[in-house]
């Protein structure tokens, strides 16, 4: 209880002293010039900002016109560009068409060339087979040549030469007119006939 009374006394003392505290104190330095300078500089900033805002407002009234002008220029540019693009597209289309037709001609030529080459290869193959068979037959005939009449042999050789020259003409004609398949058939028949003649000659020679 005594402690509480002491505390209360001290509490009152403290409150009393708080009440008696000074409410203000003199400053050694005058801060007003510095405050005034800061306020003035901040005011300048505010003025600048307001002027800027006014400028923005002034500019803002022209914005619709500027947008309209920009749109017109943009549309004009776009139309011009579109036309130019179309022209270029047409030019490219023409060039492409020409290139296509060129390619078709070239393709045809290549195709013809390929057919011709195939034909030559076919004829060569046929000639090789014929020559192999002919060499074989001729070797057989030569082996028995002593038993064959010289005049007959001469006739055979001359006939073979004529057939060979005829074959050469046929080959030339085939290459010049590859579409005419009858010539190939004719050449084939000629080879076959020659080989038949030679085969009969070998048989004749053997029988003698």
């Amino acid at each position, binding site marked *: 209880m005594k402690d509480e009374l002491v*505390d209360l006394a001290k509490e009152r003392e403290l409150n009393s002293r708080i009440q008696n505290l000074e409410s203000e104190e003199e*400053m050694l330095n005058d*801060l007003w010039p510095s*405050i005034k300078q800061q*306020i*003035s500089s*901040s005011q300048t900033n505010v003025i600048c900002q307001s002027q800027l805002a006014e400028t923005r407002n002034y500019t803002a009234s022209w914005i619709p016109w500027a947008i309209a002008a920009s749109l017109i220029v943009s549309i004009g540019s776009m139309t011009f560009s579109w036309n130019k693009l179309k022209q270029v597209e047409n030019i490219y289309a023409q060039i492409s068409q020409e290139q296509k037709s060129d390619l078709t001609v070239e393709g045809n030529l290549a195709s013809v060339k390929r057919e011709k080459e195939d034909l030559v290869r076919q004829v060569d193959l046929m000639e090789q087979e014929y020559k192999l068979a002919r060499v074989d037959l001729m070797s057989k005939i030569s082996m028995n040549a002593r038993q064959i009449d010289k005049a007959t042999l001469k006739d055979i050789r001359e006939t073979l030469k004529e057939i060979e020259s005829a074959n050469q003409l046929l080959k030339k004609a085939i290459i010049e007119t590859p579409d005419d398949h009858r010539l190939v058939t004719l050449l084939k028949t000629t080879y076959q006939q020659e080989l038949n003649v030679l085969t009969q000659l070998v048989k004749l020679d053997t029988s003698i």
Partner: protein
Amino acid sequence: MIANQAVLNQNDKIASWVSSAKLGDLDAFEKLYLTFHKKIFLLAKRMTGTTSDAEDVVQETFVKAWQKLTSFRAESQFYTWLRSIATRVMIDRLRIKNAKIWQQALDYDEVLSAINSDMAQVKDLEKMIALLPIGARSIFIMHDIEGYKHVEIAEMTGVAVGTSKAQLFRARKLLRESLL
């Protein structure tokens, strides 16, 4: 009667200076500065503990007051409004130094023994207040000297009302123990 008349005249003058200052009259604002800067300086000196910091607070307070003058409503006292600006400036400064300055618990025994020995040397309450830990000191000044309520202190400092009360209790206990 004469004193009341003087106060009324002073209040009228302040209201007139405020109105002029709101319109951009810097001379009127200077009169407001001359009227209130000593009070703000003492408050700042008590809170910050140093003259140089207190001067910085005074300067910042009056510059902010000028910038915010249009938001001042005539219903409240100009000094109350000005003081709230100064208090917030100081709280911000204290928060920069230590964000948890008001949450820090006071170890009463240790603080008491350390501070009491210093306080025993001084009989001046002003000097005793200056010896208080900064968190407890600022709340003691705001509550007991400036008259802020715990709710207002809690709102300004960002601490709980209970924390504000606890800090005030410890500050007052320290001061009571030191009083002879």
